């Protein structure tokens, strides 16, 4: 009877395991599907080609997860965004609504998925003089947490090098107005920047090769 019971248990367990592993692979397949609606704006594998949509592929998973959770909680600003293409072209939405439709689990999955992709730097025109000045500002105030010209995903501080200039500009505005909270130690550094410094930084980040 006992043996029988344990046999039963074993088969039950292996059955469950099978189901679980099946679910696992189904989930893996799902990640791409999950990301499908994002790619309309953020491009294939998060390598956005639209200058008003940030490149997100290749950022670190913790940063991406935190960002999405911040949108979900409406801690980050919920700018109105127009869908640039696809069947819903022209419709209005915002990142908060988009993030709110995802579960925490899904957010983590998407983050892992994106983190494994390369960050494809945007090619954009910049002013070399401003970029040089920007580098100085960056090295003096921002390097500590945005190392290697802001190109290290491992810093968990997003990626600035090669990011679309309009997006960097917008995040500067959001930080400046207080609409987007800043990390405690970034705040004093950022608040000391002059407008000209910020302009220079934007050109610098575009210049990082």
């Amino acid at each position: 009877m006992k043996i029988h019971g344990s046999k039963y248990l074993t088969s039950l367990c292996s059955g469950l395991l099978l189901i679980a592993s099946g679910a696992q692979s189904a989930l893996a397949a799902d990640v791409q599907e999950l990301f499908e609606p994002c790619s309309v704006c953020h491009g294939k594998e998060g390598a956005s080609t639209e200058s008003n949509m940030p490149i997100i592929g290749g950022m670190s998973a913790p940063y991406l997860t935190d960002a999405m959770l911040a949108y979900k909680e409406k801690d980050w600003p919920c700018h109105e965004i127009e869908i640039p293409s696809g069947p819903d072209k022209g419709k209005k939405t915002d990142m908060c609504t988009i993030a709110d439709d995802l579960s925490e689990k899904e957010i983590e999955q998407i983050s892992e998925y994106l983190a494994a992709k390369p960050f494809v730097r945007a090619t954009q025109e910049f002013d070399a003089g401003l970029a040089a000045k920007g580098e100085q500002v960056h090295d003096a105030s921002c390097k500590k947490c945005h190392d290697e010209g802001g190109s290290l995903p491992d810093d968990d501080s997003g990626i600035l090098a090669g990011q679309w200039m309009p997006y960097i500009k917008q995040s500067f505005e959001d930080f400046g107005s207080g609409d987007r909270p800043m990390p405690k130690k970034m705040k004093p550094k950022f608040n000391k920047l002059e407008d000209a410094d910020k302009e220079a930084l934007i050109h610098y980040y575009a210049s990082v090769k």
Partner: protein
Amino acid sequence: MPAQKPAVYLLAWLACLVITQLAWLPGAMAADAAVAGEGLDDATCLSCHAGKEQLTVTNEDGEERPLLTIDHRKYIKGVHGDMACVDCHVEIIDSKVPHEYGSAPKPDCVQCHEALWEIAKREDLTEEKARLGVVVQNIEAYKESFHARSAPSRKSGVKAHCDDCHDTHSFDVPPRGTSKRTEWHLTVPTVCSKCHEDSLEEYLVSVHGVEATEKHNLKAAVCVDCHTTHAISKTSRDPFQLLITKQCGSCHEEEFESYRDTYHGQINTLGYAYTAKCFDCHGSHEIFAVDDPESMVHPDNRLETCQECHDGRKIKKATAGFLTFGPHANTHDYERYPQVWIAAKFMHGLLLFVFGYFWAHSLLWWYRECVDRCGVKTEQRIRTDELVGLENKQVRRFGLVWRIGHLLFALSVMTLILTGMAVFYSYTKWAPVVIDILGGPQMAGLIHRISAAIMLGIFFLHLIGVSIHIARKGRNFRWFGPDSLVPNWKDFKDAWGMFKWFVHKGEKPVFDRWTYWEKFDYWAVFWGMAIIGGSGMMLTFPDITASIFPGWVFNVVTLVHGEEAFLAAVFLFTVHFFNNHFRPDKLPPPDVVMFTGTQSLEEFRRDHGMQYDRLVESGELEKYLVDSPSRPMTLGSKILGLTLITIGLVLLVIVAIGFFGGYSP
């Protein structure tokens, strides 16, 4: 013979090569340095590296730099002191200038220490070499830390490697408690500031910095006391913020304890980092004493500090009233927190009185019934001649509305207790589990508020119902009559009489429709609603509360809300359960009268003999007689009753765990 010579040379050369390649392996570590190559003894190394002359070398990229120098006296005192230079520097195979490097890797602390520990484990020397174990633990923590993250432009390829903080040549951490340790401890900020210059500047002028560096106070925190030594993570990450909060608490114990009693601290203890933590109010590096005008918590700056989080965005903006809130209020400091002290004394008095009285009541009752049951049964049976034809009849005691009201009330109160106690006893093992299952503190809070609305709703509906009932009766309502729940003289006599009966000094009183303990249960709800409901409403609408009352009201209200809830929970699941389900003449539980609404004539007569006699006399008993509940109804009621009792007892157990168990970090 001569033909063999080259072979011997070849073999010797091969052996040499193998030894040089393996010399860095710990097993070979004690091997004489001389075997590694000619002129590779320490003296030879030091002839250049002792720094007697100022020598320079040219880097791989063509830059000139001063030659690395070693203070040999310090070196031999360090933990690595009895090792030869080439034990670690296996890549050095000659004493030429510049060196020609062998193919062995450069010294690697991690590999070497992990290998040493493996050997210690294999040779069963883990106890003798416990320090090695600590090093390996530190390495494990380091590997997960932010310092171990990649930084391609740095030589080590990581943000910071072992030798960025530890001077490997003189490495020697003195034992705890020695004055050497003090000195060593105080060097930490200088070490960290090699990279974190800004933080050092902030730190040096802070209370911690002044105490540590100017006053040489060993107790004053240096970098590693808050950031940990090896597990250092990015401070913006939640788990690390929680850890840092605990680190503060490991020195500032009393402040940490009082913090944990506030909502900020309770949520933090549950493992969520979104409420205020030490450094949110006091600053992280730039911490000053409260009376220092630089301090974030100085009365002049405090409101601004509160407004960092209470910024009018997601939560209402902090108002001047916040200044009198005690984020570290305690119940024992009358001088500083008189209102909290008084509230605590009152609540403790109330708890003692209620439990003292009712637990004595329950215990004595139990004792008396046990005595009766062990001895001759004297219980009188109902004279059967009165009951001819009434075998299938029961007495109706509670109408449908009452019963539904009671059920909803019980369910909402239990939900309130679960969600509330998880915050009240946030430091227990079970609390974070409950909160997690419920979907986090915000969701648990929502459930708590919805249950509170249900509970208060039922209470007010009941009030309206009773008012209508009394109004209809008008002058005919007998306030102190047998159907009224208002206490009357007989109740006090009965209460006294019961105690006399418990101790065999009198007959058991005969009760009318409502016994005094039932009346107590009834009126206790009014008290509870006023206290818990009132304080709960004040906490639910903090903005309104803050606009009317000073900040310390939040301290008082939080305390009263929690303790009154504790009183209610424990009262319900001990005294109320005993009186209605667990006293010997009710066993086995449950008593389903509150679910079926009816009870047997026998029970009715035993518990409410006076009402029974009255109804028999006036011939009104008929009016109250109904058919016994159907089998499914009885069974369902029993299942429901047992379920509720089980939930109640589980809640009682978890409350007890919270009450008797303390916080453990």
